[in-house]
């Protein structure tokens, strides 16, 4: 008899879990937003990502399978600011009002973020940060403090889509943020000895990261997205690296490494590969490990350079 009762409870639990899981389906454009959505929804939702891990999001082109992925989604989470501009086209083809702009399941995660390097409310080709499109620097997930705002938007949309899950979603988010805050203290302590360290980055990916961890990114190698730096620019950067005693060049896995390596050979600086997104390197498997990897790698490189 007790065995039958236990089996009945387990079956009921499994059935209810399956039903809940089927209620919410979250589609995020990037692996970073997907990881935060997983942290908020836990086992209540199935979370999918459009841009494959380790691909360059700024060079991504959607395929027909991505359109199919959007079908039946309860919540769609995007970076916004023109970073994933192709999503507008997919959403207009998809036609489900709930996940289109102003729909209950539509989340532009940039909403409410204290944005850096804001340019305007429309596209200006004469931008200066190397991004071919966009209204501000879009790499805001690289500041862990912004996770609070991003997860807030995801939680609200999740609750709108499935109000009966509200309590669980709020609890998940609160638990995650408390835990993330503790980790942030550790990361800040790791990079504290290197406060104001001058750095060069290949692409203008790191202003939010630099703000959080108090780093000085003096310049970027790639002036315009996708355009190889000119020799005159490289010569100027080499002079800057020597003048300001810059020891580390921050590079990303999918960027061409010739220019960074050339500068490193010429100046003695070290090229450090950091992960701009989850999946960019094998060690960055979720949002916390993204910072474990980046903070750890950068702290080690800066310590080695100062010795």
């Amino acid at each position, binding site marked *: 008899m007790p065995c039958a009762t236990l089996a009945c409870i387990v079956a009921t639990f499994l059935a209810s879990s399956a039903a809940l899981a089927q209620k919410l389906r979250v589609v995020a454009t990037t692996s970073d937003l997907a990881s935060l959505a997983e942290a908020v929804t836990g086992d209540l939702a199935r979370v999918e990502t459009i841009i494959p891990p380790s691909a360059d999001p700024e060079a991504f082109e959607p395929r027909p399978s991505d359109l199919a992925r959007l079908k039946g989604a309860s919540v769609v989470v995007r970076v916004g600011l023109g970073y994933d501009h192709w999503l507008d086209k997919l959403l207009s083809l998809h036609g489900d009002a709930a996940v289109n702009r102003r729909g209950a399941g539509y989340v532009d995660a940039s909403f409410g973020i204290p944005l850096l390097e804001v340019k305007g409310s429309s596209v200006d080709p004469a931008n200066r940060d190397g991004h071919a499109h966009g209204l501000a620097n879009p790499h805001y997930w690289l500041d862990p403090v912004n996770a609070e705002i991003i997860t807030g938007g995801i939680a609200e949309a999740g609750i709108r889509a499935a109000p009966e899950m509200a309590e669980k979603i709020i609890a998940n988010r609160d638990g995650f943020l408390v835990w993330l805050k503790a980790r942030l203290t550790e990361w800040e302590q790791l990079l504290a000895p290197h406060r104001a360290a001058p750095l060069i980055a290949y692409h203008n990916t790191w202003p939010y990261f630099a703000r959080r961890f108090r780093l000085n990114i003096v310049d970027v190698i790639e002036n315009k997205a996708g355009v190889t730096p000119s020799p005159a620019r*490289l010569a100027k950067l080499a002079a800057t690296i020597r003048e300001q005693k810059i020891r580390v060049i921050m590079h990303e896995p999918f960027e061409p490494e010739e220019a960074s390596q050339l500068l490193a050979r010429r100046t003695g600086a070290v090229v450090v590969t950091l992960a701009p997104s989850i999946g960019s390197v094998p060690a960055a498997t979720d949002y916390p490990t993204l910072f474990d990897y980046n903070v750890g790698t950068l702290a080690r490189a800066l310590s080695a350079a100062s010795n």
Partner: protein
Amino acid sequence: MFEDVLAFAALPLAAAIVFTGIHTWFGLQVLRRNVVFADLALAQMSALGATVAVVAGHAVQSIAGYAYALIFTAVGALLLTGSRGFARSVRQEAFIGVLYVVATASTVLVVDRSPQGAEHVKKMLVGGILSVTADELVKFIALYGAIGAFHWLIRRPLLAAADNPDSGTRQIAFWDLLFYLSFGVVVTSSVGTAGVLLVFCFLIVPALVGSLFSSRIGMALVIGWLAGTAASAAGIFGSFLLDAPTGAVTVVAFAAVLVIAGAVRAFITAPAKERCRNRQLGFRVGGLLFCFVLGLSGTWVVIAPAGDHPLLAAIEMATGFGPERFMTSRERADYLEAGLIEHRHKGEIDRLYDRERLSRWQGDELAPDEVRRIGSMQQTLTEMGRGERFVMDYLRTRGRERERWYVGLPLATFGFIGAAAIAWRTRRAR
């Protein structure tokens, strides 16, 4: 800084000269065989091989990566050799074109399986000659030296095979295969560093320039080397001066050298009678084109003063005689004020940017609301700047509406009358 400029330029220039050395020789044979785009097809086959290697988990620079590229290039060489047999009924360039597009499409399909493939394809296209190392240069010299020496030894049958229209014999097919295989090895090596576009220039432009001045292969080779070296130096140092990507500037420099060589051949070194005819033809065609463009530009100003007028803008920039002169005093004052305000807004945006940027690592961290306030100000100022630009554009259009009768109409009249006069004189001369 000057030392850096020299250091960044020396190795790429040396590499470009080495590439010119071997590619001019192959280019001359490519021109004789009438297979100009064989290089692109082989380079694309090589890129396909390298892409397959990347997807299979090998680095492009590794031995496995090179082997993949070489095997695919060898397959391309075999296909090109075989296509010459079909060329009796259809031009061989058609087969080369098919090979190129199939190799390109296959590369895209293979890249689709590799998350970082797009970057790899772009690199194959534009290359990275600026970052060539001394070790790579030594390898290029050794490899190309060996291939060059080998070709020197077998130059007679190779050239005979290139010139022989009877392409059905096995002997010819053998020399063809040897040519394409060695060509494939050279292309595979150079595409990884210089990219498909620049390798095509190294191959075709110096050979074309050499062929313009001499039908003797030795002399054409020397002239091609000189032209290629001059174009490489102009491209690499030009990219410093223009602060522009080296590969793209070098391609343009090669094109400029070809145009200059063509002009020298037509107007200076051609036989006296031909030279005289070329000069007359040059003056007439050039004059006709110039007058026609002036006429069209003037007409366009009259029809659509609010449109884009690149020629008129260039004339205005050169003479300082712009639409401001055709504004009323009130309009001119508003125009200048809008320019000043836009400039002031830009300065304020830069000041806010610097303030936020410095706060990332200096002093106390800015509060999120302060960052939001700065962002909001930057956005507002950017939009206000656009508003001022709109005012300037509107006033410039008003000026152009008046300018069209004083500048556009005379320009159109002068252009079309000039073109008609040249055409009439040409007809009379006949």
